[in-house]
């Protein structure tokens, strides 16, 4: 009898030992991943512009590509990845359409973005399905040239562009079918001095300016672009010929690097000023009259590269409204800074990337309440490749729980 007890004890001990293994769940590989999309062609060079999540949990990435024999403009590159971040397929749109701009918008079942006709340099609206089966390009009717940024608002595109004939920053409301519903032009300056940096921006030989466009909660449209000699944040009702409000920068050396409306006149914003960077979560910004961005203050972050790119996402984490600022750091990482949306108080930070240099391109909160960050890296220190970081809901909760228990 005693020996049977020994046998049973042995069996229980064995069963206990086998129970010691870690939980495996395929969901873990969806919740969190890091992916670098590599092409083994020496001269291949794609870059990301924007990213959107697709209904299947994957992502659609809008990018640019070098067109052989075209040293001026960049072509259109689209990539689909699955919910694990694995590459699914890519499309290199033919070189007759160039210079795609953010943002990549979703409307009904398709994804839309604005690009430029290579020969006429007029704006086009491009659409593609979530599986990258086909790309449709529609010219914008009405002569809208050099689109610099677009946002999809109230089922139409709001596009900021550059009129190189009259030296105007243009703002247009464009339907997904390419019809211009409203148009306004805002004077930059009659001379040539400002045009060179703008053209350098378009052909990617110089500094990339943070052109942006959107609509404030008070119904006013805004663009971040050149106006009256300076890089400014301009508010317009799209009725009056003159701007309703202007927050001036300092020629090319100061202005807003990102802006996201919160409520009323409150915005989450970031600005640059002669290389320095300032983050302004939850800041009241005048939408009328003339003011100066340099007087808006903000948190100065020396860790950011000069005139850093900044992306802002309003996110809900654990039922808390937060602002996530994504930016490029001097240590060649992507820095994520979390702020309390209602108070502007700093919560926490997270840094993505190491070893190879990383730069931010786009951020989006995912359906599973995580965060996807699209960026660029230099594989082997020399090959520019698109990268995607997926941060899980739980990781975000941990980050935010630091100061928002």
């Amino acid at each position, binding site marked *: 009898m005693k020996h049977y007890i020994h046998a049973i004890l042995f069996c229980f001990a064995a*069963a206990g030992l086998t129970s010691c293994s870690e939980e495996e769940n395929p969901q873990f590989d969806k919740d969190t991943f890091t992916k670098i999309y*590599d092409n083994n*062609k*020496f001269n291949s060079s794609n870059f990301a512009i924007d990213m959107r999540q697709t209904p299947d949990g994957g992502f659609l990435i809008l990018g640019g590509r070098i067109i052989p024999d075209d040293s001026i403009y960049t072509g259109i590159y689209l990539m689909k990845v699955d919910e694990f971040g694995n590459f699914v397929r890519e499309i290199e749109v033919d070189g007759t359409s160039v210079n795609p701009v953010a943002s990549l918008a979703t409307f009904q079942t398709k994804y839309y973005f604005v690009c430029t006709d290579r020969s006429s340099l007029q704006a086009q609206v491009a659409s593609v399905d979530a599986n990258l089966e086909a790309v449709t390009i529609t010219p914008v009717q009405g002569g809208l040239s050099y689109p610099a940024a677009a946002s999809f608002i109230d089922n139409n595109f709001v596009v900021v562009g550059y009129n190189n004939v009259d030296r105007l920053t243009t703002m247009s409301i464009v339907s997904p079918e390419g019809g211009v519903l409203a148009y306004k032009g805002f004077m930059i300056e009659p001379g040539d001095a400002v045009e060179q940096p703008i053209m350098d921006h378009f052909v990617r030989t110089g500094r990339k300016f943070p052109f942006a466009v959107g609509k404030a909660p008070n119904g006013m449209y805004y663009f971040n672009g050149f106006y009256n000699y300076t890089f400014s944040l301009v508010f317009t009702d799209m009725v009056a010929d003159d701007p309703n409000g202007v927050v001036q920068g300092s020629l090319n050396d100061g202005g807003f690097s990102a802006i996201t409306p919160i409520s009323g006149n409150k915005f989450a914003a970031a600005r640059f000023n002669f290389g320095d960077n300032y983050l302004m979560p939850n800041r009241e910004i005048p939408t009328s009259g003339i003011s100066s961005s340099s007087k808006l203050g903000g948190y100065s972050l020396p860790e950011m590269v000069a005139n850093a790119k900044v992306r802002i996402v309003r996110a809900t984490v654990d039922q808390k409204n937060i602002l996530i600022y994504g930016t490029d750091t001097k240590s060649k990482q992507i820095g994520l800074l979390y702020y309390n949306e209602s108070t502007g108080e700093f919560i926490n930070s997270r840094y993505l990337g190491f070893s190879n240099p990383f730069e931010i391109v786009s951020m989006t909160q995912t359906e599973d309440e995580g965060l996807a960050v699209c960026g660029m890296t230099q594989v082997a220190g020399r090959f520019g490749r698109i990268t995607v970081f997926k941060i899980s809901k739980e990781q975000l909760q941990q980050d935010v729980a630091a100061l928002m228990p």
Partner: protein
Amino acid sequence: MKKTTLLACCLLIAFTVFSQEKKRKASTYNKKKQEKGDVKFLEKQWWLGVKAGANWSKVNVMDRYSVISPTNYELTSISKKYDNFGLAGSQASLEVSFYFKGFLLSFQPTYQHTRFSYTTHYEWTSSEEENDRVELDYYQEQKIDYAVFPLIIKYDIAGNKVRPYVQAGIYSAMRLNATKALSTSGVDYAAGGENEFKTETIDVGVDDLFAKYHWGLLGGVGVNYNFKNHVRLNLDVMYKLGMSNITSTENRYGSDRLAGVGDAMDDMKLDNLSVSLGCLFPLRFLQSSLQTLDR
């Protein structure tokens, strides 16, 4: 299912071993009472010992993962190449065994330092210009310390002074510490010649990349040499067959340092071959002669 089958096997082995006494009772029936008592006493023995040695590991990949997601070539071309049984680790064990009629039930808590390595190779080429080519190699060495808890049944095959045995059992391992050493090398042919480059090795703490616990089966052979003072010299060869994933799937991309250079751990089971040398001391003696079972 796998665990149920294993449990059934354990039950079968255990009942076979522990029912030996009943079968042998008839053979000792005619011996004198005292002799019978001594022999009965000597049929059981506790052994306590220590042993240490070297081990070599082999990786069995379950699913492959990579941070690099190729857009124009096959993922298999950049798969990790494991150097199985290539690096020696070390281990030290405490052994507590209970002998009963040829069988030993043994518990051997072990500190095991495990090492294995893999390489990944990347290449960028041009169809237009032969010299537009860069090769890049990553070498990664894993060093993982485990506390291993094996439960083993041994059977003495034959002999008296020299006693060979076979063994089988089950183990659970708890990860104590894990580090990776990463070094990068390559050749840049586009620089105008063969520009070889190499970076300094970086060591990264990667505890979270490995599962806290895993388990497996084990089997092996060994031999005991009995000295006159009844102390045993033990040579033990053991093969551990990993049965569960040693990678933490939750933290696969948890190291920015490694993800940054394209590394993500595969799902894998770890086999381990160990050779140990040690000594065992008997804990039960006949009062008159300090006689153990080894006569």
